[in-house]
């Protein structure tokens, strides 16, 4: 068990299973919609400046060469 210096809240630990299930359904349907929109050429560009959630690690690989 990791030590934890604040109470994570039991309800919050339990609820995550349901939250994840709902998120899974949503993400799946979004993925399907994305493909359909892409096929029909209806994709819009994102106007928020913050980039994606994923980190581009390519540079790190290059450096180790």
């Amino acid at each position, binding site marked *: 068990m990791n030590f934890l210096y604040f109470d994570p809240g039991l309800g919050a630990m339990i609820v995550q299973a349901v939250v994840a299930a709902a998120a899974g359904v949503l993400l799946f349907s979004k993925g399907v919609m994305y493909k359909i929109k892409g096929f029909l050429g209806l994709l819009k560009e994102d106007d928020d400046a*913050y980039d994606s959630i994923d980190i581009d690690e390519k540079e790190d690989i290059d450096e180790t060469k």
Partner: protein
Amino acid sequence: MKQNNTSPHQASFRDPSGYMFYDGDVLRRAINPIYFKQYNALKDSGFFKTLIKNKLLIPHTQTTVSDQQIVITPEPIAFITNPYEWSFEQYKHAALHTLKVHKYALSKGFILKDASAYNVTFHKGSPVFIDTLSFDFYEKDTPWRAYKQFITHFFGPLVLASYHGTEIFKMLQTHIDGIPVKLIASLLPGKSKLSSTIYTNIHLLAKMERTHSEDYKAETKIAKLSLKAQNNIIDNLFDFIKKLSIKEETEWGNYYDKTNYNDAAFQGKKTLIEDWVTALNPQRLIDIGGNDGTFARTVVTKVPHVIVTDIDSNAVGYNYKQIQQNKETNMLAFVCDVLQPAPGIGLNNSERNSLVERLKGYSPDVTMALALIHHITLSGNVPFDRSAQFFAAFSKHLILEFPTREDSWVSSLLVRKREFINHFDFYNQEAFEAGYKQYFDIQKKETVPGTKRVLYLLKNKV
């Protein structure tokens, strides 16, 4: 490492993994043996390196290593802003940043064990994660322990702000550990339950917290959550937050379209400011009431660090957008109400410093207060010597624009006083100078061409 001449940082005591302390003027972070295993794993696996390289985590160098303590020294941050001082965009980016860091951690077998909004601040124009010890090992199939904290510190306030406006963020001043889930749920309109993301992450969470609030012996078994499921939660929160927006009209949004001065006057004011600031050669400058940073931007290439604050969250948000677009790494924007600056909060009222304390620490060489004094004096009913005292507490030089009674904005403020208009006869240049001379020497004084406004250069007597 010498142990004398050090003092602990007031905000750093909750996490047993380590603490921040001042070694003379330098802020360092001590790591306790309880966290050595994690620290070494994070360091040796290249985890820190990637995060730092991608500008997600504040860079640090390892200073000393012993059996009792490892000391690291993070890159200094010019000025710490707190969540209740952020515009909507900034708050949003801080939330997205936190999720991004956690997702990367998960992909490398770690977790973000702490999702406090105070672990993010703005540095070099972008959000940065500043708590280097907030990571731990991921244990297979365990839910995210900082999930609730993410909801009370980030998701809840953002969703509330999207319905009620950014004034909601000020609630963080009275709730240092985030807005309670129950309160968030009760403040949301019923229709918010129709969103499966808001329903599960807030309403259902509030319900579950209520149901399980009496598990005093920690007997209930915690459900398992696969890594894939946890990633789904994070991805979905990220997508949802990224699309959040607010619709807030403010008096300042299009301020420069509405003002009474023409292009020549605008240019004249810019030139005056540029000349005066350049002559002073400041290292740090703050523009209070600086709207979207229009005037601060005239000197941004000449001053190593510039802060622009405004009472209007929209103006600050617009400024933040420009900072990101122009890649102005030396400019920082945040929300501040001069008449009600952020107080010191938390343990001993010193866990998060008051705005005035932080301004004293920042110690700007030049403070600008352009077309602000009539609002402080006439809307806030603050006598001249009192506002002078406020500026004198942290400013060396003060560039202040004084709109005279003939200025249209001033006359409008005066007319609105109706039968009390005579109470404000003191609003004139003589009284202003008398009040400010108690704390400042007047070095320059010039009328902004084509306006009824006078620009002063004042030097602190101390």
